[in-house]
């Protein structure tokens, strides 16, 4: 059985493209519409990796990372930001919160898969 990746984004079309790319490569994908939904889904079942947007309603990506890092079951799950945000200061915030990597939108499927392979080994 393939590894499970959680994609968190308030944009359905981004979730769809992430999901499409990962499923094509044989991964299981779970979708969440914002940070709050992401935390709930990440802690409810086994998730091997999280790919999250930064700016989202209810709970943003940074808060999501902090929540997951505070949870024993998700503390070491790799979390990659997938966002339009490209400012270094934001990246540093993400890194400080516990992000594993940063991808600026739009992504190319090969890039996303390359990151996933590197991160999941």
């Amino acid at each position, binding site marked *: 059985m393939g590894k499970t990746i959680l994609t968190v984004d308030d944009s359905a079309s981004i979730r769809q493209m992430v999901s499409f790319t990962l499923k094509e490569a044989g991964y299981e994908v779970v979708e969440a519409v914002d940070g709050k939904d992401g935390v709930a889904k990440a802690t409810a079942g086994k998730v091997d990796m999280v790919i999250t947007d930064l700016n989202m309603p209810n709970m943003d990506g940074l808060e999501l990372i902090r929540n997951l890092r505070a949870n024993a079951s998700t503390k070491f799950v790799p979390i990659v930001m997938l966002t339009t945000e490209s400012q270094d200061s934001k990246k540093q915030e993400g890194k400080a919160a516990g992000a594993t990597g940063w991808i600026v939108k739009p992504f190319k499927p090969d*890039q996303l898969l390359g990151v996933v392979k590197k991160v999941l080994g």
Partner: protein
Amino acid sequence: MRSPRPECRTTLSNMTISETLTTLSRWEEALGGLESRIQSTLQGSEQEFLEAGSRLQGFLVKGREISDLCSSAVDLTGEDMMGHIAGELQQELDRMAGHLASSSRNTAGSISSMAEMYVAITELNETRRGFKKVISTLRVLAISTRIESARLGSNEFGFNTLADDVEKLARQIEAKYGSIIAKAHDLTGFVEDVLAKTQALSLLQRKTASDVIAETRAGISEIIRINAKSAEVSEEVSLRLGQIVSRIHEVVTSLQFHDITRQQLEHVAEAFADARNKIGEASGNGNGDPSAVREVSGWVGDVSELESSQVLNSKNELFDAVGQLQDNLRDISGTVLSVLRSIQSILRSTDKEEGNLLMVVEQQIAGVVRLLRDSQEREKEMAASMASVSDTVGDMERFVNDIEEIGAEIELIALNARIKAAHTGSHGEALGVLAEAIQKLSGEARGETEMVQGALVSISDGARALKDLSSDDQKAQVSVVEETAENMDSLVRRLNDLDREFMAGIEQMGERVAELEAEIREVTEGMQHHLVVGETVNFIQNGLGTIVSESRDIVPVHEIENREERLAELMSRYTMQSERNIHQTALGEASEVIKESDGSDDELGSNVELF
């Protein structure tokens, strides 16, 4: 009650404060309208992109299905399948050509043997004169003996009996030789008939060997060539299908631009909302501080100018993305159409050529097999006929033996005549001459008999050689030919089965490709959201253009207070580097464009960074 504010024309250009406040109120309303336009443009706009995204999965599934069909087709035509069978067929044809050559050699051998037999029979006929001479001489001698006996009168010493014996021998030789000649006549007719049939068979064998085998070989080579061509086209198709997957990946990138454009337009709408708030705050319900009114008038002009550039950039990026998406989809569609054309070319060529070729090859092989079977049947018939020739020759040999015995009797009669002539003394001298003549005749008869025997030996040898055609070796060859024929039939059947399977796969592939092309065209033509965004952006730019123009009239750019701080604050709200770049470019600060951090992962691209 508050007293009216004094007019302040010096600080607000040519407008009074109340005129400016009225203008600000109009801007506030206009910006609200633009904000609403953005919201309504974004409302439900994602559906179109989601629909296109969901169709991508179907495109890939169909693409893979076509690719699988293509691989199967390539496998069928490959070295392991049709190519291999065609190769085996070629080998079997070589074996068949070998059998045919061997059969031709046998036929040629038969013709040669029969020709020799014919010559021998002709030679047999040529002994007719010699025998006639022997017979007529015997008869003359019998008459002469009878005359001489009459001359001798009572002292004849039984010469009449001698004359009777000679007469009798003449009749016997005539009868036996007549039988030999009659048999030889029958044999001539028989050999002529068999020779004609065999020569006709030989002609057919030569024609088959030179034409049919060559045509069949060419047909099989053509099948191999068509298969190789089909495999080549199928491999090209497979390659192009791989390009489709790569194009679909690019479409994935383009489809993310809905989210990017949405965010950009939302940022613009936020800027409008912020500007409206600031207008409200500065206006102070019609009692705004002139300097604050002046500052916000200038600021709204800046915001409008910048956001006009931002929306234009959003529009351009979206149009580029949708353009690329449509280009990629059209490219996929074009690839799919070229795949369809390639498939149709396979169908046309294989349908017209290979189907016919297979049929022709099948017929030609059947013709060769039939000829080989006929040849062997003919050889068997000939061998059986030769048995009767041998019997005939046996009969003839018996007649020859009889003639030999007659010759021996002539010898005895001649000896007896000489003895009687000696007893007769001088009266019997003439008889002695006759006895001598009879003896000489027996030698001639022996010579003629030996000639007949020689001819019969030749005929017999020829018959034996022809009879040997149905020897064990020949029987073994029959079974080998049958085996080769069965192998060839089986190979052609397999080739036909594979051809049908190949054609069915290609047809199925054609159907899938046509469906895929129609679906892609539907999605490509269905992309309309960018046009709506384009109209919205044009509308926004028109509205903002008026505000910018009026703003610059109220406050020239160089007189706007706190401009740098406000612009810096506005810039800090952007999330995208492209927005920051547009912001700086619009302000003439292109040279100061902020460079992205270079912590990117080179291997994965400049937009990727792993911590």
